[in-house]
C-alpha cells in the first residue's frame, strides 16, 4: 500500500499533503530525542547553513506554547518539557511505595554485608535457597547491582549494593553499617553466639576483586531493568 515509504511505522493521522517546515521538524525531533537540554551550537549544526536558529526556535516556541508540551530554556540550553500545569493530570497514580518481602530484605542485608557475593553464597549464609524473583526485585529497587563474575566453576554472577542503596538507607558509606559489637550493643544480636562468629566489614568499591572477572557482554541483560 505504501510501497514507496520504507516499511512504515504505523503513523496515525491523515496522510498529510505537505510536511511542516523542515527546519522546524528537525529541531523538534532533536529536542524530543535528546537526553539532556541541547545547546544552540549543536542545534545550529543540524540546520542548513544560513538558517536563522533564533528565529526557528522562536517559531517552534510559539507552536508549542499552547500545547501540552512546551519549549523551554534551561541553563542556557533548549529542551521540550511537558507543560507544568499538567503535571498532576499525567503523573502516575503513584501507588504507595512497596514494602520489601522478608526474603528480599534478608537477602539485601546479606548482599550489603557480604558483598561481593554470589547467589549460592547468599543461600549458604541464609541457610535457605532464594528464588530468582528475590534477586530480581532487589535489582528493580535499584539497591542491588550485578558486579562481575566470580572466578570459580560456573562463573557465578557477583552482587553488590549501589549508590542508591546508600542514599535510601541514609548511609554515607557502606562501611558505616554497624559491625558485630554495634549490632550487639543495639540489641540486634544476643550473647549466645558461638566463638568465631564475625560480621564482615562491608565494602562496595566498584573495583573488582582478585577473584572477580568483569561482566560479559550481554550480562547487562541479566538486569531486568536494562531490557526496557
Amino acid at each position: 500500500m505504501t510501497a514507496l515509504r520504507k516499511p512504515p511505522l504505523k503513523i496515525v493521522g491523515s496522510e498529510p499533503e505537505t510536511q511542516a517546515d523542515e527546519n522546524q521538524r528537525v529541531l523538534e525531533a532533536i529536542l524530543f530525542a535528546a537526553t539532556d537540554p541541547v545547546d544552540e551550537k549543536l542545534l545550529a549544526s543540524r540546520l542548513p547553513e544560513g538558517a536563522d536558529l533564533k528565529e526557528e526556535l522562536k517559531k517552534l516556541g510559539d507552536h508549542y506554547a499552547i500545547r501540552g508540551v512546551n519549549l523551554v530554556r534551561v541553563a542556557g540550553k533548549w529542551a521540550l518539557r511537558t507543560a507544568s500545569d499538567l503535571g498532576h493530570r499525567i503523573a502516575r497514580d503513584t501507588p504507595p511505595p512497596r514494602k520489601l518481602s522478608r526474603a528480599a530484605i534478608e537477602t539485601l542485608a546479606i548482599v550489603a554485608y557480604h558483598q561481593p557475593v554470589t547467589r549460592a553464597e547468599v543461600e549458604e549464609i541464609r541457610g535457605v535457597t532464594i528464588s530468582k524473583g528475590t534477586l530480581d526485585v532487589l535489582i528493580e529497587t535499584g539497591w542491588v547491582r550485578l558486579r562481575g563474575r566470580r572466578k570459580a566453576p560456573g562463573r557465578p554472577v557477583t552482587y553488590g549494593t549501589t549508590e542508591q542503596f546508600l542514599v535510601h538507607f541514609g548511609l554515607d558509606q557502606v562501611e558505616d553499617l554497624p559491625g558485630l559489637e554495634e549490632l550487639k550493643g543495639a540489641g540486634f544480636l544476643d550473647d549466645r553466639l558461638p566463638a568465631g562468629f564475625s560480621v564482615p566489614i562491608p565494602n562496595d568499591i566498584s573495583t573488582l576483586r582478585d577473584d572477580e572477572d568483569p561482566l560479559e557482554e550481554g550480562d547487562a541483560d541479566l538486569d531486568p531493568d536494562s531490557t526496557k
Partner: protein
Amino acid sequence: METSDFELPEAERASHEPQLVVDVTGFEGPLDLLLMLARTQKVDLAKISILALAEQYLEFIRQARDLRIEVAADYLVMAAWLAYLKSRLLLPEAAGPEEPSAADLAADLAARLQHLEAIRRAGAGLMTRDKLGTEFFARGMPEENDPLQPQQFTATIYDLLSAYALQRQKKALSHHTVQQRVVWSLKEAREALERLVGVSQDWTRLDSFLIDYLVEPSMRTTVLASSFSASLEMVKEGHLELQQESPFAPLWLKRRLEPRPELQVLETKQ
C-alpha cells in the same frame, strides 16, 4: 547494513570464482549451500531442476574432498541422500506405493529451499525496517511525571539490620547445613517398613530390616531417623509393636496382626 550481512558475502565471493567454492565453512549447513548453488541456476526457485542441483552439490563435495578439505558429516549425509535421489530421478520410477516418488522427494526439497529463501527475505525485510534508536527515536529525557515510572520500594535501616542479625544468629545457633543431602522421606521409610515387616512374623531388629538400605554411609542417619519415625507412626496405628530393652539398645519390631483400635481412640482423644 544488515542486508549485506544477509546477502551471504562468502557465498557471493565464492561464486565469482571459476574454481567453485571450497570454503565449506562459509555455509550454514547443507541447505544453505544448496540454496547458493540453486541461485546459480538463475531461475525461479519453483522451477529449479533438482537433478541439476543434486549434481552440482555432489560435484562441490567431490572437489572439497579432492582438496582434502574436511567436510562436515551433515554435508556428507546430504550428499548421500542427493546421490540416492539422483539415481531415482534418473531411473524409471518403479511403482512402489509405500515409498514417496522421486518427484515428491524432489518437490519436498524444492519447497524446503523456497521456505528458507522466504524466511531469509523476511528476515532481511525485518532488519531493513526503521528501528528504534537508529531511524526513529523515543523521548530521551526522563520526565519526573512519567506515567510509566517504575515502582518505588521502601525499607528502613532497622528492617535491614534486624533481618541481618536475625538470620545470622539463627544460622549460627543451629547446626543446619544447606548442603543438599539425600534424604529418605518418611513416606519412603514407611513403605519400606510395611513391605519388610510383612515378611517376618518374629521380633526383628530395626537396623537389620534396613540393612539393604544402609549401603550408602551418608544415608545411614536419614534412613534410621525416618524409619524410626515411620515405625512410631505404625505403632500408633496398631500395625506394629516396638520394643527396646534399655536406652540406646537396639530397637525390635514385630508385625501386629490385629490393629488396636482402642489405642487409636486414646491417641485421638489427647
